[in-house]
């Protein structure tokens, strides 16, 4: 089978989790000898040659093609000139708009030139790039007729997937890694939601990264349940990491690592920390990461008078991330809404027991973890205390967790995906 796949980024040049998931999936599909044409807006040239890569920036659009005009017309609801950048926090957004207001491009000109230089990032012309990417998708679908099915990852590439389907008549699979409700809570960006919805409804089949995401797709986007399959993410490497980095403090360490934003539920971690520290002062809590709620968290920690035992590291990168996992005695992911959430699996690889919220997709695949409701700070405090003090349970989690990890392979995910492809192709009228 040959798949025309639309992504937005691919390792090593990634800024989000989407690229990593695409990489795993492509690798898994290659393992099952599936042919993939993988399109990204911008190629860097140092990608691992797992697929037939197409660089969106190299594709020339043929304007004599009348059907493209129709596609373009259908895309005008994207409001290409709006400053909509859903992946930025408020502070970055401010910086972005300051910049964009003084440095606008003449949109129609650049859209209708024959080639277009994508940034391939979540940058200032994101909406424009998404629309232009749809034309690129249409052009590729017209030039390459050798594929059987189209597969598009997240809303950024949904318009490209829809256009390719319109031109080629081949079935479309829409893969949802996160929804606008996960990113923004109840204050969704309407244009993003509209694209997501259009993608799911135009698709012949929808793939969700968790049952949790599937439920969102059904209830918030009105997609019938039988049209949605759940394919959990996996890990590229399940081996246990033995770090030689040593802890420098005598206390046990409980860690939160991630963006400090509404979605990740940092405030519940702070409140639970207070409860634990009231009982056991020999613990240090660490909140690693950055985000728009950081200062509010610092204020709260000072107000609770626990700042001598609650630390902020700022954004961590490279080795520091590994060091952080390595010195943690408990890892907590209290996400309010997490379509999947790969970081607890990283913690497991470092032999660190984890506490995860029931509102995360990863809770569906990781059995040997404590699962709590993100808002239940008493239960969170109890669990932290238990993992710190009752060696039996943490030892069990360490052993069983690493066993479980070995089952989460991208080959398995890809095998299921092939079944989804086959089913989609066979049920087509």
């Amino acid at each position, binding site marked *: 089978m040959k798949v025309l796949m639309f992504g937005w980024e691919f390792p090593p040049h990634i800024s989000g989790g989407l690229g990593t998931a695409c990489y795993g999936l492509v690798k898994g599909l290659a393992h099952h000898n599936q042919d993939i044409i993988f399109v990204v807006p911008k190629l860097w040239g140092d990608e691992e040659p797992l697929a037939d890569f197409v660089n969106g920036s190299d594709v020339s659009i043929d304007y004599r093609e009348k059907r493209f005009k129709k596609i373009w017309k259908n895309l005008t609801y994207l409001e290409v000139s709006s400053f909509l950048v859903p992946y930025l926090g408020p502070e970055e957004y401010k910086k972005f708009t300051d910049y964009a207001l003084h440095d606008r491009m003449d949109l129609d000109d650049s859209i209708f030139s024959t080639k277009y230089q994508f940034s391939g990032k979540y940058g200032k012309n994101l909406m424009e790039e998404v629309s232009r990417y749809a034309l690129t998708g249409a052009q590729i679908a017209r030039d390459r007729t050798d594929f059987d099915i189209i597969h598009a990852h997240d809303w950024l590439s949904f318009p490209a997937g829809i256009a390719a389907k319109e031109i080629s008549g081949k079935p479309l699979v829409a893969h949802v890694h996160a929804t606008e409700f996960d990113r923004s809570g109840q204050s969704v960006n309407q244009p993003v939601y509209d694209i997501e919805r259009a993608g799911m409804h135009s698709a012949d089949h929808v793939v969700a990264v968790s049952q949790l995401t599937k439920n969102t797709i059904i209830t918030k986007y009105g997609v019938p349940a039988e049209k949605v399959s759940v394919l959990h993410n996996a890990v590229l490497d399940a081996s246990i990491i033995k770090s030689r980095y040593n802890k420098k403090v*005598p206390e046990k360490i409980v860690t939160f690592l991630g963006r400090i934003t509404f979605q990740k539920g940092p405030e519940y971690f702070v409140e639970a920390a207070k409860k634990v520290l009231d009982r056991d002062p020999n613990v240090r809590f660490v909140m690693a990461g950055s985000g728009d709620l950081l200062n509010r968290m610092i204020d709260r920690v*000072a107000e609770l008078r626990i700042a*001598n035992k609650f630390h902020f590291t700022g954004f961590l990168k490279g080795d520091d991330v590994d060091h952080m996992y390595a010195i943690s005695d408990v890892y907590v992911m209290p996400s309010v809404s997490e379509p999947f959430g790969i970081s607890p699996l990283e913690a497991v690889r470092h032999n660190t027991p984890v506490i995860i919220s029931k509102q995360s997709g990863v809770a569906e695949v990781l059995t040997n973890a404590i699962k709590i409701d993100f808002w239940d700070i008493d239960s969170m405090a109890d669990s932290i205390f238990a993992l710190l003090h009752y060696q039996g349970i943490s030892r069990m989690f360490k052993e069983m967790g690493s066993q479980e990890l070995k089952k989460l392979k991208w080959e398995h995910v890809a095998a299921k995906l092939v079944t989804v492809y086959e089913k989609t192709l066979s049920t087509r009228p």
Partner: protein
Amino acid sequence: MRKICFYFQVHQPYRLKPFRFFDIGDDHYYWDDFLNRSVLRKIAYKCYLPMNSLLLDLIQQYPGQFKVTFSFSGTFMDQLETYAPDVLESFQKLVQTGSVELLSETFSHSLASLKSKDEFGAIVGQHRDKIQQLFDGYTPQVFRNTELIYSDKIGEMVSEMGFKGILTEGAKHVLGWKSPNYVYHNSINPDLKVLLKNFRLSDDIAFRFSNKTWEDYPLTVDKFINWINAIPKNEQVLNLFMDYETFGEHQWAETGIFDFMRALPEAVFKQTDFGFATPSEILEHVPAISAIHVPTPISWADEERDLTAWLGNDLQDEAFDRLYELEHLVKKTNDPDILRDWNYLQTSDHFYYMCTKFFSDGDIHSYFSPYDTPYDAFINYMNVLSDFVLRVKEKSKQEMIA
């Protein structure tokens, strides 16, 4: 003759280096040597050296008539010894003239007077020792608390330590209709005299000198002399208290601040009935007119003249309380490194950097802060403090065993 009292505060904190969570328990050196050295050298060049030489000229020109007063924090003196022995020497020369008085203060420019009487007494003693060591056995007689912080209770403690006078802010909300241009006394112990800063005339020099939007800009010696002469004849003293860095650092040389100071003494002698005196001389010759009641602490900072620049928000209060809860343990260790760090960590500047009052228009606070935000300042301080706590606990455990 009526008296003008020029008092200059000279203080530099030991600024912390960026200290990360991963450094806790691992790295026990907290100070940003490079930053501290470069700040000190920069100010030495712009302010301390030229202003010291100007003052020496004036003292030699008007022997026994032109006088000034300094207060040096211990953290400043320590940095002088390390980074600027040339500046130390020029201060020593000034003190040797006999026309310069030195005040007592807390060694670490700390806020201990608000928290611990024991610690307050201890670091005042340390400061005295340092002054004696650097200035030929000189012993200060008059006290000046960190940031001119004063209350009736603080005054009482200071008087118990044997000082005959203290300097503080002539805060409007304390004075009401009264004038700062008299000598007052502490309301609990009348033996302690209180000198109040005339904040209008002091700040005309210290803050408004180069402010072009000020209606009286530019400030000339003639103008200033007119204001001095406008002081009612029965008011005896004019206390001009300011940071020494006013000269050349806060007000750059280009603003003419040095020329202003060079010309001022002669104009005072020729055109007014004022002379110059130091606090000790004033206390000896001018009797106190009445008690001054200060039930809640005042300071010379910001428009409010209260403590909110250093304490009051959650960040500051948390850091402050966490520091001073260690006092008992620290004292028991008797370890010179721990005691030095304990001293330097008390410096009020660390808490000043955590002030969120001016978060929005971030004027003067951000000018003095090495941090981008009060939150950064807080996190860094708490990381350092966490390491310090570990050291103190470890040390006291060792001593218990020994």
